[in-house]
């Protein structure tokens, strides 16, 4: 039923996807401290249809909130691969762009877009709730224009992503079944 025919049906689907983004409850970095104020009463991201999702299966948006230790990167990649197709990644803070404050630490990754496709970057050393909401609005615009095809990008150049991941993990790579499960109908 969910064929990919571009056209009105897809446009309506994008409209629905834009207005109901479920955020995965996963505080990967120190930016996670600005997620509660954004989701609770003072800034209330639920006005935009944002709702917390407990598991990757239910989530649409994975928020990488700051730096990523290599141990966390492995779990993030596995979580990202378990999420279902129209999935987006919002990268908060300078640590995801060029290493941030921990640029010289042996345990954090420097450029997030080497490992998973990222839709929107938000500047800030821990962006404020307003900046996060601005990031979400930018993500919504990108979804509406149908450009938020992170999953397709991941599938198409999977070798490049896996090569970068292998550089970090060495031979402790994730099992293959995490990303090429039959994906359902």
């Amino acid at each position: 039923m969910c064929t990919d025919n571009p056209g009105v049906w897809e446009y309506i689907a994008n409209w629905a996807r834009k207005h109901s983004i479920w955020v995965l409850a996963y505080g990967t970095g120190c930016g996670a401290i600005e997620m509660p104020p954004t989701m609770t009463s003072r800034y209330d991201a639920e006005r935009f249809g944002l709702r917390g999702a407990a598991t990757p299966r239910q989530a649409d948006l994975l928020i990488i909130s700051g730096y990523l230790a290599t141990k966390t990167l492995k779990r993030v990649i596995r979580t990202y691969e378990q999420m279902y197709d129209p999935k987006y990644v919002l990268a908060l803070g300078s640590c995801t762009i060029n290493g941030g404050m921990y640029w010289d630490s042996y345990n954090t990754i420097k450029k997030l877009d080497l490992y998973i496709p990222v839709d929107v970057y938000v500047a800030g050393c821990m962006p404020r709730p307003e900046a996060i909401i601005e990031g979400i609005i930018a993500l919504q615009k990108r979804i509406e224009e149908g450009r938020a095809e992170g999953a397709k990008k991941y599938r198409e150049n999977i070798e490049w992503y896996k090569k970068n991941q292998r550089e970090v993990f060495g031979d402790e790579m994730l099992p293959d079944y995490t990303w090429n499960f039959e994906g359902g109908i």
Partner: protein
Amino acid sequence: MSTGMRIVDIIAYPFIAFLIGMLYMGIARNIIGRIHRRWGPPVLQNLIDVFKLYRKREAGSHGVMFHLGPIIMVTGVVTCLYFIPMLSDGRWLKGFSFDGDLILVTYLMVLGALGMALGVGQGGVPFGVMGVTRGLTRLIGLEIPYFIAIIVLMAHYNTASINKIIELQAGGLSNWAMFKVPLAFIASLFSFWGMMGASPFDIPGAPQEVASGPATEFGGKYLALMMSSRGIFGFLKLTLWVDLFMGGAANLLILVGKTFVLFVTVLFVTSVYSRFKVEQAVDFMWRYPTIIGLIALVIEMVR
């Protein structure tokens, strides 16, 4: 009622329940939002969510049973819905009421949960399995006061047909079953909150403990099925309780009015209480609501 109109009536039945159910969940998120001192999402948010979930491109499936689980859940709920008359008089939305349908409805309500259990079993996620076991144990706790309440009702009106009960309650506020057998109503109210997933009893899907319980592994369109079935199931119980205790509804407006009042009580309870553990919930249910139910039963027998 020509066959054409009956077909329309049959088809319209679940969709009305779905729409009103989803609308209630949207309004619920707004009311709870106000209690949280925030604005809350637009009212149609749940409909948008369900539509988005249907339009997900992927939905991982772990085999046939996993695929059938949500379908059984929805069919269970919809068949149960058919046996509950939404509007008591008038030609529309009467459903297939017959003599013993109160007992049939009670049985069918459990069918959805069982179907879900099979699907989750196939999925193999420990959280899912734990969620289901919690759900079933909680069900045991909730069923007792509900059964007692129904027995009291049947004894009071000595009939097992929902339609008759509605008719017997006709004529003004005073002879609503709610006031006729108040203790039974209170006992059934506890199990009603439990089944609606109000806070002290929303144990199966507790995110902090078992990562959304049974729904852990379900994504995409399966989750959409589950959400819509939860919407219909919510409305189903509301109409059931309205029919049994609040004199049914003549037309759609009264139905919506009465169900909404009942629904608001669920919201108040869910937003102010923490969550029981499973054994605490069952223990609580077997203590106070059961006692109230038994007292109602005794009163009934004495009368």
